[in-house]
């Protein structure tokens, strides 16, 4: 009697353990499949001209996506420029002075903002910038991506600053350093590698964003000069090419997806390689 009950418990334990392993395998199958498809279909589309030429019209062979590649880099650079400094500063504020009611509201807003759908950010920037300037631009796209980065950068900075031992600050203050220098030169510098990791993950995320760019940066079959013109980007191009009915455009979409995926994965992996060297590593 007892032993049969014991066996039953052992069996159900085994069943659930196997189910958990199965779930993990199941969760990873799409990753493997996506990587396989993107590599196998995209690789043949990668050539020198992909990186150096403009897209050709349907029916003509050849052509590349040089403008979209540059466009994506432009947009991401703009987003970093507009998103990282305020994000880090807000994070510093939260870590240093954020015990007030105001600090709670900032923290709350950042958390809420990180859950806002990216497409609504697109609408927001559309009405804020595109409607005012009356045209799509790289500038608008950069702002949209910066808005998406802002909450992540803020919260990462705060969390990592709070991991820095308080004794470091005390040591600096004890030497007569004013508080702002202690924060910037001691606390922030100690937390820097960890913050860099978080920022790179945020950059990797926005580099692949499509929805907020659809009606901010829009798209452009040619080179765009400066930041005030509609700008092509890899994600938007992948979307436009994928839903087109043309076989050769599908091919281009896979190639672009491979480049984008490599870019994003590279950022992700290098971000994680940074972690172990930081004092603030979790």
């Amino acid at each position: 009697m007892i032993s049969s009950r014991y066996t039953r418990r052992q069996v159900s334990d085994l069943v659930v353990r196997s189910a958990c392993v199965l779930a993990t395998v199941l969760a990873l199958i799409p990753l493997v499949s996506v990587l396989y498809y993107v590599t196998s279909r995209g690789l043949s589309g990668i050539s020198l001209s992909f990186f150096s030429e403009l897209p050709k019209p349907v029916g003509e062979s050849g052509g590349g996506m040089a403008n979209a590649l540059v466009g994506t880099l432009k947009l991401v650079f703009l987003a970093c420029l507009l998103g990282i400094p305020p994000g880090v500063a807000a994070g510093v504020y939260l870590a240093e002075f954020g015990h007030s009611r105001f600090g709670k509201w900032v923290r709350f807003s950042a958390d809420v903002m990180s859950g806002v759908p990216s497409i609504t950010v697109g609408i927001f920037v559309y009405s804020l910038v595109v409607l005012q300037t009356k045209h799509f631009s790289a500038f608008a796209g950069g702002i949209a991506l910066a808005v998406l980065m802002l909450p992540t950068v803020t919260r990462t900075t705060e969390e990592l600053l709070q991991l820095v031992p308080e004794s470091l600050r005390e040591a600096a203050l004890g030497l007569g350093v004013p508080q702002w220098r202690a924060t910037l030169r001691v606390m922030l510098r100690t937390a820097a590698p960890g913050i860099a990791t978080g920022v790179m993950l945020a950059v990797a995320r926005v580099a692949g964003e499509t929805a907020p760019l659809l009606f901010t940066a829009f798209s452009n079959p040619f080179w765009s000069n400066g930041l005030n013109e509609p700008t092509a980007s890899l994600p938007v191009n992948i979307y436009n090419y994928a839903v087109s009915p043309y076989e050769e455009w599908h091919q281009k979409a896979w190639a672009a997806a491979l480049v984008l995926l490599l870019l994003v994965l590279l950022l992700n992996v290098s971000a994680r390689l940074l972690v172990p060297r930081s004092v603030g590593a979790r």
Partner: protein
Amino acid sequence: MSVSHEVSPLIRPRSKILTRFGRELNWGDFVFRRTTALLAALVIAVLAAMAAAMLHGSAESMAKFGLGFVSSQVWDPVRDVYGALPFIYGTIASSLLALCFAVPISLGVAIFLSELAPAWLRDPVAFLVELLAAVPSVVYGLWGIFALAPWLRTTVEPLLASTLGFLPFFQGQQRGFGMLAGGIILAIMITPTISSVSREVLRAVPGELREGALGLGATPWEAVRVAVLPYARSGLVGAAILGLGRALGETMAITMVIGNRSEISASLFAPSYTMASVIANEFSEATGSLYLSALAEVALLLFVVTVLLNILARLLVWRVGRLPLGGNL
């Protein structure tokens, strides 16, 4: 993160007291504090501006259609009549379907990673699961169009129709593109979110509970079932709601596979349309202020719902780890 907010008593009060006793104010500190506070206020300002922009944009549509906007099925740009019900239905149905797939799998992943897996396996597997979240949405969409949808059309949907075809969910033309494809792709995309939050929640469960159960002779699964899961319940619900919030707002991948037809059908094979998709598809070519306003109202609805879900989820997740040891069991 449960980092303590306490500051060493040696530091903060000193400057306060000295300032009160007439010490000269450090201008660097003053400027530093004000600048960072200003940029912190920017976070609140952006969120508020976002809400204001969408409220402002949708004013015309709200005035014209009122509550009928969410209950009408007609979306006709030619006659300038707009009702968002098919999109609301499509969004909710696809997200709930995604939860049905993603919650059991994510829970399995989280339990495996936090309770059962050998220590050397945990970090690599967790990294791989997080890579799932790193793949851009549009790449999932591309994969969905050319890999997932054809597979569903040729393999999965005929199988479902022949075995469970008596149910209304598995009837009708098998296209590959439709609610089922949308639900699956959303499930793939929210699995990393739900599983990593669940894992954090399970980690916050005090070890004594596990040890107590194991010490009484429970098998590892029984320990999880009787000691860990009840304690973590609200946090796990929070994780699922966080995933739901992401699924509702997800745009590109689902736009590429759900079929984009504004009809309400019980069948999972039928094409559908979501709120985010209609914005993505129609916003840049919308002419006429009422049309734009209606799309802005869709965006506003999406914004409000995701914000509320996020707040709820965070409250639930935050509760775990603050429960008393004996409480709530």
